[in-house]
């Protein structure tokens, strides 16, 4: 749901999490406020090609090597693992990594959703320096990068990843709890759990989900067209939803780039990035990823507010509509929805 159409497949990560909990015990969830200022938090993510990650699955030793390197550099072991990106595969897999390390998982992440590019994280928006990246690969190589800025961080990490077989585990922005305050998006793991629970054991999963998310319903209808093209390593495309029932005679189009980014109706923007836009199955309320969109599906499009951090000037520079090539001034979903009901 928080992947907003992207973020990657969660199944392998979920299996790894289940297995690690069985083998190493349950993972406590800690709030940032519970950690002392000097506690080290390691944000972890898997990077590489999705096709590779479904074939050359992570080993169990990769998180340990990163933790050892963190301890060598900082002189003390990490206190918690954090998800860099709560939406999609990197939202679930950190449970496995935390279990393997015997560490708690911080109830926070770097996005509150999914984004396609490395610099689109809260730590960057908060101005933390991107001066340390630690990577470990499947055979035991550990690479520590001291880049001069975010651009080099991305460039060098990408090169290491390719050499390692297009699949690696990465820690960037190793944080102290003090540094993390205000620089991470808190409460997102417990939020993800609550979202998942909301649609269980209810006769009206969509209603329950909307209530949990505080989401605006943009349209309920049928998917009548999906157009995709691959460009620059990303899947771009447009999906068209024709309204049904109360929404008859309305047509919503969604602009996609891995994630759902902009929703339009009659040339008017109804929701836009960095607010979250997710397509769900109208009956089951299950999220439909962009690659799973197909003609004829009965879907509802939901939109809800992003974390306030993304609405700051630097947040919008980093992940606002213009960062994705849309010449739009950002208007929060709450205001767009208000215009709707007012007009």
């Amino acid at each position, binding site marked *: 749901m928080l992947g907003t159409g992207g973020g990657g497949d969660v199944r*392998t990560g979920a*299996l*790894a999490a*289940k*297995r*690690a909990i069985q083998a190493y015990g349950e993972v406590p969830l800690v709030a940032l406020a519970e950690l002392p200022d000097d506690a080290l938090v390691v944000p972890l993510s898997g990077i*590489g*090609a999705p*096709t*590779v990650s*479904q*074939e*050359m*699955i*992570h*080993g*169990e*030793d990769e998180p340990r090597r990163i933790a050892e390197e963190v301890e060598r550099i900082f002189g003390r072991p990490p206190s918690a693992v954090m998800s860099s990106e709560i939406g999609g595969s990197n939202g679930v897999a950190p449970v*496995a990594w935390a279990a*393997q390390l015997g560490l708690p998982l911080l109830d926070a992440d770097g996005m509150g959703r999914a984004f396609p590019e490395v610099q689109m994280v809260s730590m960057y928006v908060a101005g933390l320096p991107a001066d340390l990246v630690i990577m470990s690969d*499947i*055979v*035991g190589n550990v690479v520590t990068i001291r880049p001069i800025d975010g651009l080099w961080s991305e460039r060098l990490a*990408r090169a290491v*990843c*390719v*050499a390692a*077989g*297009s699949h690696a585990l990465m820690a960037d922005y190793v944080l102290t709890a003090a540094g993390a305050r205000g620089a991470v998006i808190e409460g997102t793991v417990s939020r993800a759990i609550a979202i998942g629970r909301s649609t269980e054991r209810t006769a009206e999963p969509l209603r329950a989900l909307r209530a949990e998310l505080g989401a605006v319903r943009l349209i309920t209808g*049928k998917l*009548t*067209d999906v157009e995709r093209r*691959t460009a620059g*390593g990303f899947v771009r495309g447009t999906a068209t939803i024709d309204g049904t029932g109360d929404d008859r005679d309305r047509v919503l189009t969604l602009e996609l780039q891995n994630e759902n980014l902009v929703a339009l109706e009659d040339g008017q923007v109804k929701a836009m990035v960095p607010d979250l836009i997710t397509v769900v199955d109208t009956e089951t309320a299950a999220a439909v990823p962009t690659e*799973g969109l*197909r*003609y*004829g*599906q*009965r879907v509802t499009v939901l939109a809800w507010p992003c974390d306030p951090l993304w609405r700051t000037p630097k947040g919008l520079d980093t992940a606002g509509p213009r960062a994705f090539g849309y010449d739009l001034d950002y208007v929060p979903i709450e205001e767009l929805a208000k215009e709707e009901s007012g007009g």
Partner: protein
Amino acid sequence: MAEGALRIGIDVGGTNTDAVILDAADRVVAKAKRPTTPDVTEGLRAALDAVLAELPGRAASDPLVSGRAALDPLGSGQGASDPRGSWGRVSRVMLGTTHATNAILERRNLGRVAVLRLGAPATTAVPPLCDWPADLRAAVSAGEAIVPGGHYVDGREIGPLDLGAIRRFLDGLEADAVAVTGVFSPASAEHERAVEELVRREYGLPVSVSHEIGSLGLLERENATVLNAALYGVAAHVTEALVTALAERGLAARPYLAQNDGTLMTVEHAARLPVSTIGSGPANSLRGAAFLSGVGDAIVADVGGTSTDLGVLVGGFPRESAAAVEIGGVLTNFRMPDILAIALGGGTVVRPEGVGPDSVGYRIAEEALVFGGTTITMTDVAVAAGRTPPGTSGWRERLRVAARAATGGAPTGQISDMSEIFRDTVERAIAIADGMVGDAVDRMALRRADRPLVAVGGGAFLLPAELPGASRVVRPEHAEVANAVGAAIALASGRIDTILPAGESRSKAIERVKEEAAARAVAAGADPGQVEIVDLLEVPLSYLSEPAVRVHVKAAGPLAR
């Protein structure tokens, strides 16, 4: 094929086992339906006997069973003799069966498998079989190990293959077969081949190697490979049952088994790849519908006793599902027909407040009003609405009698000779059922194309003459045995899914893969002179050291003489 040669297609379904005989010109000359038995084999033999008994020259003017017999699971044809000597003309028997599916669902007759993965230290975060249902894992696994070996996406070794570790693992186990899955083996198979050779030579055990079974996606391919290894005994049993049944009847026909993509393989090939026989039913039904209707691009609705399966034909072949396929609680990456099943069939129970989802199933011959029972089923509703199977002119009268009895004689306010309540129920049920089918057709259509709907299966008469979303409704002759026809007309095929460099060497590499796919089709039984590439799909991959494409190739051709 010899002049005048006949072939028999048999399809084992959940409710019925259907059989047809096709002549050399692909005409249906005999057909039969028998109930599927719990052991599968008895129903198979009964259907075989029944269809042989229907061979022309023996029956009266029309060798084809009536609509009543087509729905009647008890039937009447019996006999295992060959009065006209026509059985000797049967040259081939094609069987689509549920033996393997049942073995997995019931955890019966499964072999013990040593599960070997080549890839350590990679992949250890998700060990083999960790998502299997516990009872199936207990029934199948003789032990699991992840040993050094396997390849990177670009063809480099992750590490050298550790044959010593493999010997140590196998020495401590009692297994009936070994399943070997190497990381990126669909692109680099040499480690799997080396292990196969070692196990054959030193342990004398049959081996399933994953690159012959599935495509990229380690866990799903591994699951399919382990299931395959567990099914060697079941495959031998099916082959023996079929060969024995043919021998008992003096049939010198060559046997083939249907697989999940709607193509055939020899029994020798099936002995190596028994897991491919799972899910052949929907593919057979779609191929049979294409053949009988002569329509290559259509939506097919196969209406059975408890459900209607909708699929899509593209160029005469089933459109394949993009989603992973679950077998007995285990996720695999087989390419299966994209099927949408809805709870609507001839035995679906109709109540004043709605339709189904429950069905009287095989008890329809006792419980439906038209058969003298007391339950209103979709069959009764269809007949009341004037939708009757061919050759069932008596059904409407039988229904009138039954409806009168069910509503307690002739109540006042009765319109015509059916009670008002019954008429309301019929009208509402027809509207609901047509709405369900229309909605499902729309979901399967993929785009706003105006394709015909081909209606097949024993309950095809339930469908209306027109449906929104379909250009027309086609009802081919012999539609009630389309699945068995699909088995009888199927081609043999081979397929490959791998990763190739996208640079200059690409076209040469693709030619090589095409040849390999054609060779696999020939190994499955196709005529080497007539094999064609029927499917070629290239998908560019991102974030790799060198540009690469994922290539899927399928070759198919008619069976060799």
